[in-house]
């Protein structure tokens, strides 16, 4: 059996006050060694609080977090040795340049001056920051700042890397670059916990995803299985010259069609079987079909389906 690097058990966090906020309402999950594990959910779902507790920064109301078998709540000092953290904010030390940021981070983790220098230079090389050695954090682009933060977070060889919305606010190019780095880190054996509200990010990067909403985990599985759980394998977006109610009911009546949803300028239908695409299109042509696109199921559709059900409850 694979080693569990993170175990979260029955985590609850209630912020007391006049109107208590139930940020986390009983979250449990395990993360295995070498995995990229995603916490996917909208802002305010409880992802950041969960990560805050695991990274020893938030005191839970109840529950336990074990980081590499060390209790993060009762022994934060030892737990912190085993983890690195990157947040969506640029928290680089602005009084120091890029190299010094890495150097002093190592010093905080007990490295001697000589060891810290060697490690900082190694990281600059590794993350291709050698031309930014003397740069001030404030002058770095968002993507570069995140790259430096990643380098800093793994400088002390953590077993577990927390990435809290690491690509929030980054342009697509920088996001792509960061994903590549995260993949490399995974190949190196780093276990990653990623919180994100970008469905695509979770889909591309994560081995397993926990869908979080209102302080609870709705489902944990591989992105593949989550998408399969929708039941439909393919979606079709159809655009008609004119969409009439009559046409809609005709489409709904087709054997191949599971569900029909009218969107602003098109009709989205889910098919039971991807082999029936041609048949459906053929039928739709007679109704004045203008344009068609085939949509693979995404985590977004999974999320909408799951939270939609939750909201109706």
């Amino acid at each position, binding site marked *: 059996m694979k080693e569990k690097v993170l175990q979260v058990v029955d985590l609850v966090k209630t912020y007391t006050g006049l109107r208590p906020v139930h940020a986390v309402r009983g979250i449990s999950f395990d993360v295995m060694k070498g995995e990229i594990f995603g916490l996917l959910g909208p802002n305010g779902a409880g992802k950041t609080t969960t990560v805050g507790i695991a*990274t020893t*920064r*938030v*005191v839970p109301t109840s529950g336990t977090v074990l980081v590499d078998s060390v209790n993060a709540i009762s022994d*934060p*000092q*030892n737990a*912190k*040795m*085993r*983890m690195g*953290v990157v*947040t969506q*904010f640029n*928290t*680089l*030390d*602005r*009084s*120091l340049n890029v190299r*010094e*940021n890495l150097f*002093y*981070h*190592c*010093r*905080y*983790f*007990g*490295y001697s*001056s000589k060891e810290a220098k060697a490690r900082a230079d*190694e990281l600059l*090389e*590794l993350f*291709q*920051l050698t*031309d*930014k050695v003397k740069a001030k954090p404030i002058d770095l*682009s968002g*993507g*570069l700042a995140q790259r430096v933060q990643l380098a*800093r977070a*793994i400088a*002390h*060889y953590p*077993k577990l890397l927390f990435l809290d919305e690491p690509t929030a606010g980054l*342009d697509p*190019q*920088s996001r*792509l*670059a960061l994903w*590549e*780095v995260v*993949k*490399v*880190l995974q*190949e*190196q*054996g*780093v276990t990653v916990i990623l919180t994100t509200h970008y469905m695509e990010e979770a889909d591309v990067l994560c081995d397993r995803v926990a869908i979080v909403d209102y302080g609870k985990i709705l489902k944990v599985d591989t992105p593949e299985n989550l998408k399969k759980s929708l039941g439909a394998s393919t979606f079709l977006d159809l655009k008609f010259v004119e969409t009439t109610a009559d046409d809609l009911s005709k489409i709904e009546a087709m054997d191949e069609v599971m569900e029909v949803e009218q969107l602003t300028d098109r009709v989205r239908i889910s098919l039971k079987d991807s082999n029936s695409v041609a048949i459906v299109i053929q039928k739709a042509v007679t109704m004045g079909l203008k344009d068609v696109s085939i949509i693979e199921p995404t985590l977004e559709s999974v999320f909408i389906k799951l939270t939609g059900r939750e909201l109706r409850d």
Partner: protein
Amino acid sequence: MTDQDFVNSGVDRTLTKSSNLDQQDSAPSLRVALNGKTLSYKVSSGRTFYGLMARDLRVLSKNLGEFASRTAMQPFLFVFVFAYLFPKIGQGFSGSVGRNISFATILVPGLVGVAATMSGIMAVGLPLAIDLGVTKEIEDRAMAPVPVWLIGLEKIVFGAIQSLISALIVFPLVILIPSTPVQVHVANWPLLILVIFLACLISGAFGLTLGSMVQPVKIGLMFSLLVLPLTMLGCIYYPWSSLSSVRWLQIAVLINPMVYVSEGLRDVLTPALPHMAVWAFLMALIITAAVLLFAGLKLFTRRVMS
């Protein structure tokens, strides 16, 4: 290198390198994880504390000129105008503390004390308020493998060091610049060291307390409402005993810790001046230091943790 270049060239190379990692001939230049490397999970808090201190000293050394001129400017001008210029042009302050003691002598302990006290508040309080409230730069240090209060304690010690440096910068100024004689005489060195130690500690702890408490946008307000009264009513420009003619004020200023720093230094540096009893200022300094130390560490921990 831009992110575009990074995607185009860099990552591919990195990926290739890393996929070779398992082969024996390729040295694992990409030591990211613990592959083949054992890291002791025991780091002594002392080493981390030292690392935090090294960082602060590095930042200070970068701004040393700025720090020194900022520290020296106010006392320099003050001594220059009031203890050099005024006697020269025949303009003076009325009233006397007796025994033919110059105003310049009164200023020595006062200005050294205020420089030391304010320096720690400025060095710790201002940057910390911004760190905690705006830039979140403290995050990385908060994740260092030590209890959070120790990170706060490092800030206090660092503030105290800056306090001491400030006192050392100001001391020669207030002795050398005045045009009237300055009577400085240290009779009790251990007491001098103790008073300076307590003053520096109070300064650092005060800085940590304010920095953890005050919102960055309120810093200006804090200066007018706190720092100014602390200074003006801190027995810096007059000995406490001379306030006896304004009895209510003499009692009211006793809540100001600055008073005890000034009076303590007055006792150890300029014993010819009237000053508060040793037991009184020592007790007050120790209590102030203890309260601020406790409050500062508590508030800091509460700001970092939630």
